[in-house]
Each structure stands twice: as structure tokens, then as C-alpha cells.
């Protein structure tokens, strides 16, 4: 029996590619700014089969975001479609149908018509259309996760700009060029949380 999901946990199902980096940082910063805890498949330690680790991560989160904007053919001569994101969305939908009270999922796309063509089974529902911009990601996150006293999109953009400007330093500190690695992901989260001036301070110990 999986443990109860973290009510702040959000499984982030995004492509791990270079063109997506600024949007990935926007998702991480935006979720932290909304008091939510992003989780990536890359952060789970190895040892078990990757698919098992991903389903455990989905089960441990109350929410998930599936960005399908990179469901496209690879540029290699074999032109293979990229199915990881839809595969993980399918696993999530199954989990949610079996446990409707434990999970809520959202689909994000750059363009509504792409989704109508690539996953017509999702017709009749409302995807988050972020328009391929950082501002669009922050706006859609803020719309999807409504809460009182949420920071405004310009406030979130300011923090995004600062964290994004620190990415090279964070990569250097961790000795990697991979922004999706576990250590860089955690540093991006830590920076975003530290700049979340809206977060209440912990009560001082008595």
C-alpha cells in the first residue's frame, strides 16, 4: 500500500532537453512560489527499475503536471516519436481513476490544436495552454493552483529572473552541465524557496 500522498507534492513530467530549460526553471520556481513541492523523476535514487520509481513518485504526490509540448519526432534519421511524457501521463491517469481522492493531474501544451491532434482522448477537457513562454507557464500554474495570497505573475517573474540568472553558477557549483540532475534541481528549488518572501516564518522555538 503506497503511503499517503504529500498534499504539497507535484510530480513534474517534462522533457529533459536543452530547449526546454527556461520553461523547466519556470515550473520549478513557479511551484515553489505557490508553496508547492516539485518532484522530478531524476531526483529519485537508482537501484529499482525506472518505471517503478516513477509510479512511486506519482503515488507520493497529490498533483502532477504533464507538459506534452515536446511530443514530437526526434531529429535523428530514425525520427522516433518521444513517448515518455504521454506514457507517464497514462500511468498517472490510471492511478487517479483508481484513487480519485488521492491525485489530480494537469496537462500543459504550447498550443491547444497540438493536443487535439496528438491526444484526442483528452478532448472535452481543459488543458493549460502556456504559449511556449515563461510568463505563460507562471500564469497557468497560478491559474491551476489557486490559493489565497498567491504572488502575482510579475512577482513570480522577478524571482524566476533571479533564479534563472543563477543557473550557470549552480551548474558550476555542482560540476555538471545537466540542469535536470538531482543536485541542480534541488539547488534550484532551494534558491526559489529562499526567495519566497511570501512564505510565513516558522514559529520561534519556545
Amino acid at each position, binding site marked *: 500500500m503506497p503511503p499517503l500522498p504529500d498534499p504539497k507534492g507535484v510530480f513534474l513530467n517534462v522533457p529533459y532537453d536543452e530547449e526546454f530549460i527556461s520553461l523547466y526553471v519556470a515550473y520549478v520556481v513557479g511551484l515553489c512560489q505557490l508553496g508547492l513541492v516539485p518532484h522530478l523523476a531524476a531526483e529519485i535514487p537508482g537501484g529499482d527499475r525506472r518505471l517503478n520509481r516513477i509510479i512511486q513518485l506519482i503515488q507520493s504526490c497529490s498533483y502532477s503536471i504533464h507538459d506534452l509540448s515536446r511530443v514530437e519526432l526526434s531529429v535523428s534519421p530514425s525520427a522516433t516519436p518521444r513517448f515518455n511524457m504521454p506514457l507517464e501521463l497514462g500511468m498517472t491517469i490510471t492511478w487517479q481513476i483508481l484513487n480519485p481522492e488521492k491525485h489530480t493531474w494537469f496537462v500543459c501544451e504550447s498550443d491547444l490544436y497540438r493536443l487535439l491532434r496528438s491526444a484526442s482522448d483528452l478532448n472535452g477537457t481543459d*488543458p493549460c495552454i502556456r504559449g511556449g513562454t515563461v510568463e505563460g507557464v507562471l500564469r497557468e500554474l497560478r491559474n491551476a493552483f*489557486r490559493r489565497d495570497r498567491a504572488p502575482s505573475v510579475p512577482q513570480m517573474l522577478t524571482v524566476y529572473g533571479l*533564479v534563472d540568472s543563477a543557473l550557470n553558477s*549552480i551548474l558550476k557549483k555542482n560540476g555538471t552541465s545537466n540542469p535536470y540532475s538531482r543536485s541542480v534541481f534541488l*539547488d534550484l528549488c532551494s*534558491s526559489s524557496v*529562499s526567495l519566497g518572501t511570501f*512564505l510565513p516564518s516558522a514559529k520561534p522555538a519556545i
Partner: protein
Amino acid sequence: MNSQYDEGVDMPKSVHITAPWPTQEEMEKSLGISKARKRALRPLVDELKARLSILEETPVNSIEPEKRRKRASAA
């Protein structure tokens, strides 16, 4: 053919989170951020905080458009 296939899968447009805002410490605990990681990142975070406070002290509307663009690109 079942109706779920015909009508598509229901997906919420949004959720209203009513739980109290977590503290920074609660967020860090949920993320599994160690004290050592936080300590190592402190110089960078302090620099970002200083830049944030400068940005927050300057009302956006008081900045001329040209300077505003430069500020946005610097951030």
C-alpha cells in the same frame, strides 16, 4: 465503445488549495534539502536576496521603459 473513450478523460481546470502556506523550513524538509546543501548555497542566495530587495524597493512604474527593459534583462 465505452463513453469514457468517446467523451475524453475528465481533467480539472484548477484546484483551490486551502491548506495553510508552508513555512520555508517545511518546504525545505519536503524537498529533502540538507543543511549542508543550504549552507553551500548561502552565498549565492544572499546575493539573489540583495538583488531582489533592490528590485522590490523600486516601483516598476517609476522606472523609465528603457531602464525597465535593461532591468528585466539583468534579472
